[in-house]
């Protein structure tokens, strides 16, 4: 089926059924991106509710709001959800939507593989959450340290759900990364050279490579754990001569790159937002890009800084400590890039910009506490205390979430044609910023004072009551801000101020098309001769939409691939296989049949070759 671009009038009245079929079988990167983001926001809310439960339990000493077992499940699911079901998919979703637009492409390189990734993410997440209805959720932490995760210490099936659910979403991540790599390397419009790509595209490229190289290590760790739990092996059992520390090596060889997997695209997003709202090009583009690549490499050499307390030989420990400190150098370079971009710029303090600036400030704090923790003797003192919790929330919440929120305000108009309300946006920002610091700043002192992390309660009279109470108040402040955000989305989708093509006077290619863009993305592309294709160097301003149109050479025939149901079928098959491995082989066999049917249909489908 070849669709001619202009011959596609938007259907006005559509039944809910055809809308549903449309979304379930779409291979359009924009719709897939929206579904990723929607799913991720849903899980962000779920993970947030789990966090509130944790904070209610810890609001005062010796409280009994949550049973210790439930506490462990909440803690585990909070961490797992936020990393794997919220942060990663929201970045995959925004990347999906904007990477093709920013490089002037029609779609991702493999549209059906793209849809497969989406469905694997959604079905794998559902599988993970089914654990709540099957005897208990995973309860050994998002890091899942062996031997706590072995059958002896975690007898119900929760950990099996954790292993297989995350394997399914892991396949999604790898499939998505392959797609990003090929798209970015191979589908750039004429003129979009590597050194002209928006920084966000660069960070998605590096992150994709990190996923490709880091995830297999997690998969191996999980496979071995699954065998230990279900087939009587003892890869993590000291009794048979094995070492449980093996888990930590395999996990953190994945786990440390993972934190950069989620933070690099966040860096990329603020590197788009800060320049636009400072009306200046990004300061030191080349340094920023090299720093990104450097971080990518170094992030594979620091994993044992999570293991200083397990008894590494001192030389090894110090080597990993030093490597960890080195990673602070490229990170600091980026901080200076953002600051110098704002320096003497004409700043516009929109909600997006407020979130972006707060990101810079908060991330500095997280980076500094990271360097402290990378100092081996300091870590011996602080590991497993709330100081570590403070550190990684300043990097993940202060780093990833704040910049994702900035990006939501920045790109929402492009995705839906309407702006999010700015006044409510600023209330959202204020509550989030204040609530975040109320929640996590006190944790530094709690950690220094010796309060251990990962425990369900603490004794009275240790002097931790007040700070914990403040943290809980902070958590509810964040929740209030988030509620406003959700309302803002719902209302603005219908009543928001119409955005036009380029509401913020951005200069990258996603602003060269209508909001939202048509199915084929662009009617034509303006010539790309610099990093800011929509910037008029002579008039010193951004081209108006009409000027952009006048400059663009229209594309005559655009062939879009037809919708396909097969990605959904294949994803259902894979998920059923995973579910079968947990429950009963019978389901797995059905899964194999669905999977094979899906693959055959996939190969036979017309319109792709």
């Amino acid at each position, binding site marked *: 089926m070849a669709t001619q671009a202009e011959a596609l009038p938007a259907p006005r009245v559509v039944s809910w059924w055809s809308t549903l079929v449309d979304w379930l079988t779409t291979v359009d990167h924009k719709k897939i991106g929206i579904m990723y983001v929607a799913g991720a926001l849903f899980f962000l809310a779920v993970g947030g509710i789990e966090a509130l439960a944790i904070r209610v339990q810890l609001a005062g000493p010796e409280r009994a709001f949550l049973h210790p077992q439930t506490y462990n499940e909440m803690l585990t699911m909070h961490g797992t959800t936020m990393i794997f079901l919220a942060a990663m998919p929201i970045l995959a979703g925004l990347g999906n939507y904007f990477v093709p637009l920013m490089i002037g492409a029609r*779609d991702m390189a493999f549209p059906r593989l793209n849809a497969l990734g989406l469905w694997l993410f959604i079905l794998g997440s559902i599988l993970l959450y089914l654990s709540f209805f099957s005897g208990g959720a995973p309860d050994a932490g998002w890091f899942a340290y062996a031997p706590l995760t072995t059958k002896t210490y975690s007898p119900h099936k929760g950990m099996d759900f954790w292993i297989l659910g995350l394997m399914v979403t892991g396949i999604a991540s790898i499939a998505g990364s392959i797609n990003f*790599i090929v798209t970015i390397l191979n589908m750039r419009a004429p003129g979009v050279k590597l050194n002209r790509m928006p920084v966000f595209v660069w960070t998605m490229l590096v992150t994709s490579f990190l996923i490709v*190289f880091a995830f*297999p290590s997690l998969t191996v760790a999980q496979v071995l754990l699954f065998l230990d739990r279900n087939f009587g*092996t*003892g*890869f993590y059992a000291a009794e048979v001569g094995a070492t449980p520390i093996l888990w930590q090596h395999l996990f953190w060889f994945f786990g440390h790159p993972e934190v950069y997997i989620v933070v690099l695209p966040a860096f990329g997003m603020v590197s788009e937002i800060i320049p636009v709202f400072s009306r200046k090009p990004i300061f030191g583009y080349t340094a920023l890009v090299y720093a990104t690549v450097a971080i990518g490499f170094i992030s594979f050499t620091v994993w044992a800084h999570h293991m200083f307390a397990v008894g590494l030989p001192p030389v090894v420990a110090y080597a990993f400590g030093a490597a960890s400190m080195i990673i602070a150098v490229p990170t600091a370079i980026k901080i200076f890039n953002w600051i110098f971009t704002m320096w003497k710029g004409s700043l516009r303090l929109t909600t997006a910009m407020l979130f972006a600036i707060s990101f810079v400030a908060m991330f500095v704090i997280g980076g500094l506490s990271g360097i402290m923790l990378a100092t081996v003797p300091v870590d011996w003192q602080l590991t497993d205390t709330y100081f570590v919790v403070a550190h990684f929330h300043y990097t993940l919440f202060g780093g990833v979430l704040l910049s994702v929120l900035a990006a939501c305000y920045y790109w929402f108009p492009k995705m839906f044609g309407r702006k999010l309300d700015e006044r409510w946006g600023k209330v959202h920002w204020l509550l989030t910023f204040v609530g975040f610091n109320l929640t996590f700043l006190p944790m530094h002192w709690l950690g220094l004072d010796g309060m251990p992390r990962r425990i369900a309660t603490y004794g009275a009279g240790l002097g931790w009551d007040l700070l914990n109470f403040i943290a809980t108040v902070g958590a509810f402040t964040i929740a209030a801000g988030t509620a406003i955000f959700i309302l803002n989305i719902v209302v603005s989708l219908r009543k928001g101020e119409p955005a036009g093509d380029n509401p913020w006077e951005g200069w990258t290619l996603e602003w060269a098309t209508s909001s939202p863009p048509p199915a084929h993305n662009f009617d034509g592309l303006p010539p790309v001769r610099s990093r800011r294709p929509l910037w008029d160097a002579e008039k010193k301003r951004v081209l108006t939409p009409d000027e952009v149109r006048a400059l663009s050479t229209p594309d005559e025939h655009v062939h879009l691939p037809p919708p396909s149901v097969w990605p959904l079928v294949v994803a259902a098959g894979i998920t059923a296989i995973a579910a079968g491995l947990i429950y009963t082989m019978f389901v797995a066999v059905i899964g194999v049949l669905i999977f094979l049917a899906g693959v055959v249909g996939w190969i036979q489908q017309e319109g792709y070759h």
Partner: protein
Amino acid sequence: MTAHVEKHGTTLGLDHRKLGFWTFLASEAVFFMSLIVVFIIYSGRSTEGPGQELLNIPLTAFNTFVLLTSSLAMVLTIDAARRGNQRGLKFWLLMTILMGAFFVGVQIYEYRKLIHEGLTLTSNLFGMTFYTLTGFHGAHVTFGVLWLIATYIKALQGKFGPDNYIPLDVAGLYWHFVDLVWVFIFPIVYLIRW
């Protein structure tokens, strides 16, 4: 998407499918590397039960030879396709499949014999690491054989030729990769005395 590609070409001049598949293989490489590292870490640490001495090196050496030869056959398959030599294409593809299947057959035979002699997945660390590493590799070879059979059916229908050999190329990449992994596994698991 291919339609778009045919029209504009790709930025790097490389076919999407090949570039994507290379990336996938990079990921697979880390997967096997991790398994190999686990094998090495746990080598010589079994507390009881049989070990490497049970392995039949001459048999596996011959099997290695067969697998490596199958890679050569795969090269000849693609070469024939590029030249438009349909008979050669089908012949060499069939040879690749047969050699791959032979390799899997020998591995099954080897497993049965080892289990009979008392080395199982749960015997000891050697059993665990041996079966996981070679098992995952064997599963990859099996998958490769199935893939090549599907490709063979298409070849019988005359679907490949000088202007459509990329699917063969991609299958070939996979096949060579699986062979290459074995080139590491064989000495590490069978030859080196840990």
